[in-house]
């Protein structure tokens, strides 16, 4: 123990440091929370985007009806007429969290609305996530790195993009759960405490409740365990960190309805079971090794290995047979597209059609993690000096998450905490080295080099003692715990040896690692500058790039700020002007919003669970009017809603998404063929467009009467004049178009009351077509089908 050596002053400094650290953490929390409030200040306190609306609706239901009703909720207002079993298909973590917060506040007589709670859930949890990052990094590299990492995470743009106030999505709580699970795993690994192992399983359970990304944890941790075993770092601590997690975690995970038997049936989880078997074999080998003499051990190894091989082969054969019998090899499409980035675009257009499932571009790395991208390599190097179980885990974490983020832009979110931890480590190590050099060489300091050296020693001792402390704390807890005393004592001794050896070495090393004064001062300045750049970028990203709620759009032009509130205008129109049981068809992107904001039944929504149903809507949109009418009528659809950005230049409208509708529709109904909609492989809507394109429902609904706006029909998104300008709708009638034409609502016409004769029609059209007769029967002539 080194602490008593330094005596009172050190412990006082320690106490001071702890208080200081506490306040820093508090400020980091405040920072994390407040940087996410730009969206509320600049826009309003409103739920953002698409999925959050569904979560909000579910939370409303939960707070109104209670948890059992929520669990058993069969929603008959989406996926008409199939309905959706919400309780069994939703990750309930976020909803339950926000519902509990709301209930707690209400029981404290703080009457907040559910919406307010939902809006602010994400900022609150990002503050907690920052603290969890502190804990994790502290376990890896000490307090300094922890605080730096927490500060970085509090404002990393990637995370901000998913957790601004109003962005009420699973990721908001899941990132906290992810980091916290990793913290508890590393903590267990460092202490070997069953208490933390149990907590770890519970935290994993919370993660499973919150987000489908839990498979990342259940694959990363086994990978790390395997790494430890392979590199000969197996220890009972590793066993305690891993085995309870698999057993308890799998049991708990299968309690979540949406996971259920998937926890043992799908390939995503197999790695953990395989490693579970391996770690037992290894533990058994170590146990035998302790029991037997070396000679006997060799014999035993031969025996065990041969038997083990046979068993392994049998198990692997069974697994392979099981896996091979399923068409997707037991993997879900999203996971498969992680392993093989081209998989989705080849086979599952519905996954590929989501922009956040696309691979990211290089600028998006700079946008989302900014300078961290450059600090990460330094952090990785720092992790190898010295390489501990914990730091090897973090290295593995960053390596895998870099790969995954390269596959799917959405998984940038998983990369962000890893990058923050790495950069935190790098920055704090760099500051450590530089400030030490400065301190060492400052001429003004009395007792100059010697005391400086002493100081350095005490500082290193500080960090060491920190580490020792973390390892010491649990044992002191456990002295009360008589049953486990034996094992922990053994461990403690081992650890002390393990820690003291490198500390002595590093003292010597560090004395040699002193840099010149000027260089270190300049380096310090540059580092501060780098941090400043990062902060400026983060604040800019939070304020400008990521706080737009996407249901309200703004644009700056020379004559001031324009607000486009068309989405809510259209949903409000639906809510007030249609029957409560009317069905509204739209592309699935707008399903959640329609159910939540307009309270109308939709055919498909953002929970893309039934590809055929979505393909039906896609087919209808890509069919000519009459065929589309028949499809929609068979689904009891009353209204069709399209999003059109051509007038104001809103690029993510239905015309731009249309090729995906064709692809998804054509995947199920082969009479829809993508080449029919392309002219020489080019997607165009101008006069060169194919007749199929110009006659499909989507084109007609988007551009109906569009020519009346400017006389030419100039589409500002596609930057071209539209191909077919003057046409009439025969089976649909326009009932509402919002102020900026961003949303257009059409009603299906009822079938004609009478069926008119045939012969006369040709006669009258040949003979007549006088203006008078056209005017007379104008209303009927729009619908001359039988």
């Amino acid at each position: 123990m080194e602490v008593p050596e330094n005596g009172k002053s050190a412990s006082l400094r320690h106490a001071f440091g702890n208080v200081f650290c506490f306040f820093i953490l508090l400020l980091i929390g405040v920072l994390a929370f407040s940087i996410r409030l730009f969206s509320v200040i600049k826009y309003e306190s409103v739920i953002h985007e698409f999925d959050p609306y569904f979560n909000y609706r579910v939370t409303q239901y939960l707070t109104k009806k209670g948890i059992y009703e929520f669990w058993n909720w069969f929603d008959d207002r989406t996926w008409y007429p199939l309905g959706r079993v919400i309780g069994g298909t939703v990750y309930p973590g976020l909803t339950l969290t926000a519902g509990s917060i709301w209930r707690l506040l209400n029981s404290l007589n703080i009457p907040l609305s559910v919406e307010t709670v939902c809006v602010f859930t994400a900022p609150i949890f990002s503050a907690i996530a920052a603290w969890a990052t502190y804990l994790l990094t502290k376990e890896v590299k000490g307090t300094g790195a922890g605080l730096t990492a927490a500060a970085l995470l509090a404002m990393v743009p990637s995370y901000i993009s998913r957790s601004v106030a109003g962005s009420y999505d699973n990721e908001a709580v899941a990132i906290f759960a992810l980091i916290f699970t990793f913290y508890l795993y590393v903590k267990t690994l460092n202490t070997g405490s069953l208490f933390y192992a149990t907590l770890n399983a519970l935290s994993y359970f919370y993660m499973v409740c919150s987000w489908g990304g839990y498979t990342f944890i259940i694959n990363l941790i086994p990978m790390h365990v395997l790494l430890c075993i392979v590199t000969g770092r197996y220890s009972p601590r590793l066993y305690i960190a891993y085995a309870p997690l698999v057993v308890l975690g799998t049991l708990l995970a299968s309690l979540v309805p949406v996971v259920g038997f998937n926890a043992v049936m799908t390939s995503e989880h197999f790695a953990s079971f395989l490693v579970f078997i391996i770690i037992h074999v290894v533990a058994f080998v170590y146990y035998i090794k302790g029991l037997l003499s070396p000679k006997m051990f060799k014999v035993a190894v031969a025996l065990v290995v041969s038997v083990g091989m046979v068993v392994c082969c049998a198990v692997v054969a069974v697994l392979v047979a099981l896996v091979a019998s399923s068409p997707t090899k037991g993997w879900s499409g999203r996971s498969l597209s992680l392993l093989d980035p081209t998989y989705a675009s080849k086979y599952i257009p519905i996954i590929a059609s989501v922009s956040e499932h696309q691979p990211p571009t290089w600028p998006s790395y700079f946008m989302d993690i900014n300078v961290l991208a450059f600090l990460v390599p330094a952090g990785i190097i720092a992790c190898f000096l010295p390489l501990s179980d914990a730091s090897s885990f973090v290295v593995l974490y960053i390596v895998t998450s870099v790969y995954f983020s390269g596959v799917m832009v959405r998984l940038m979110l998983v990369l962000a905490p890893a990058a923050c931890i790495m950069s935190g480590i790098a920055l704090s190590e760099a500051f450590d080295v530089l400030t030490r050099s400065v301190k060492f060489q400052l001429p003004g300091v009395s007792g100059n080099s010697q005391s400086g050296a002493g100081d350095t020693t005490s500082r290193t001792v500080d960090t060491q003692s920190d580490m020792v402390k973390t390892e010491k704390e649990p044992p002191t807890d456990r002295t009360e715990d008589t049953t486990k005393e034996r094992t922990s004592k053994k461990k403690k001794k081992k650890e002390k040896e393990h820690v003291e050896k490198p500390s002595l070495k590093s003292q010597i090393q560090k004395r040699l690692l002193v840099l010149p004064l000027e260089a270190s001062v300049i380096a310090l300045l540059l580092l501060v500058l780098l941090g400043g750049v990062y902060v400026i970028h983060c604040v800019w990203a939070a304020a400008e790039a990521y706080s737009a709620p996407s249901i309200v759009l703004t644009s700056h032009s020379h004559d001031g700020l324009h607000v486009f509130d068309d989405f809510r205008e259209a949903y409000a129109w639906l809510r007030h002007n249609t029957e409560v049981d009317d069905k509204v068809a739209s592309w699935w992107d707008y399903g959640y919003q329609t159910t939540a904001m307009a309270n109308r039944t939709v055919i498909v929504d953002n929970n893309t669970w039934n590809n055929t149903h979505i393909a039906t809507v896609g087919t209808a949109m890509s069919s000519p009017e009459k065929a589309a009418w028949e499809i929609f009528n068979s689904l009891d659809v009353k209204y069709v809603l399209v999003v059109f950005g051509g007038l104001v230049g809103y690029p993510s409208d239905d015309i731009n998404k249309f090729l995906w509708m064709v692809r998804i529709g054509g995947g199920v109904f082969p009479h829809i063929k993508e080449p029919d909609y392309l002219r020489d492989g080019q997607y165009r809507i101008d006069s060169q467009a194919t007749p199929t394109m110009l006659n499909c429902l989507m084109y007609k609904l988007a551009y109906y009467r569009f020519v009346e706006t400017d006389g030419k029909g100039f589409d500002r998104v596609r930057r071209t004049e539209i191909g077919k300008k003057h046409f009439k709708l025969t089976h649909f009638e326009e009932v509402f178009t919002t102020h900026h034409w961003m949303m257009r609502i059409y009603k299906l016409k009822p079938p004609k009351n009478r069926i008119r004769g045939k012969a006369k029609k040709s006669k009258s059209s040949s003979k007549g077509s006088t203006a008078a007769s056209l005017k007379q029967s104008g209303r009927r002539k729009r619908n001359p089908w039988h």
Partner: protein
Amino acid sequence: MAKLWIFVTLVSLLPFLGSSFSSENPTDRRILVLLDDFAIKSSHSIFFKSLQTRGFELDFKLADDPKLSLQRYGQYLYDGLILFSPTIERFGGSVDLAAVLDFVDSGHDLIVAADASASDLIRDIATECGVEFDEDPAAMVIDHTSYAVSKTEGDHTLIASDGFIQSDVILGSKIIEVPVLFQGVGHTLNPTNNLVLKVLAASPSAYSVNPKSKLSTPPSLTGSAISLVSVVQARNNARILISGSLALFSNQLFRSGVEKAGSSTKFEKSGNEQFVTELSKWVFHERGHLKAVNVRHNKVGETGEPAIYRINDDLEYSVEIYEWSGTSWVPYIADDVQVQFYMMSPYVLKTLSTDQKGRYFTSFKVPDVYGVFQFKVEYQRLGYTSLSLSKQIPVRPFKHNEYERFITTAFPYYGSSFSMMAGFFIFTITYLYNK
């Protein structure tokens, strides 16, 4: 939730704009009769009289009356329209082709009588309703085998036809034994049009041609494809009668005797009066008008209507169907009313049993599929108004506590888990205290 399932569509019975034409009292009351000239009023007086005695208010107007109007302040002034003005080229006042068709599309009834000299306007109205008159404006139906024997030999345009439609609903339960006299243009129907019915068909030997000109080309309309009188029941159950002959309704043909060529029997009085009267009863909704009320469903053993069913529930469904007799609603009795339990396709299709008092009922088990279902009754029978009822009802899966708690087949698993617990307990005790 409660609102979700209240969704009854009584498309067939919805009144539109008429005030006295209501679902409670579907027979028309006020009828506008448009005439070419007032002579028709007296020459067709028997027909008009029979309507008046049945309680209709007839409003006779000249077809080119400049004050003619079907509606005022958005309300229709009449429930039915009789066009006995085959030659009219333009109606007076605000009435035109579109107005007449709107009148029909808002659920009102129409009788159109054309003639050999029918104007384009009358032809257009007929065409809009799915009836195509012979395009030759001078053509008449000629039949050299089933013509009515008359004084002027060689004139075979007066046809004695007995090609009636086989429907008690349209022509009444009393069989029309005497042939109907017809003199006028023929028309054809589009065979794919399922709204229009041939009530009086020409015989196979009939053809349609201008009788005054020489037959140079084969006639375009021949045989039993020619329809003499047709009815249309629109999707909103408005009924339209289209006749190629105005004389069909005239006193002259009502009273004249019939002797069909080649037949020895000679009838004192033609079948026209019975035919036209029965047909007008059908057109003005005195017959064949159904309504469905009191659609109910509930779980077996309960009375209240649930907001949602669970899969495999047993349920009871009932509906009451009545027919309008002209004065009151009487129970409709049939054995072919079916209900569908429908979600994209019928999962259950059952024939309803009846208690002979208008109530139809059945019970069945909800299929083992959850989703938003509909109780659908689609009842379309010849001559009757179409009934199309649908009532939405969601079906949910089992709740978490509705599954069986203990399954017999799982007893080995229960046994193994409990023995495992016991074994672990014993092992722990032995391990801890056996040293």
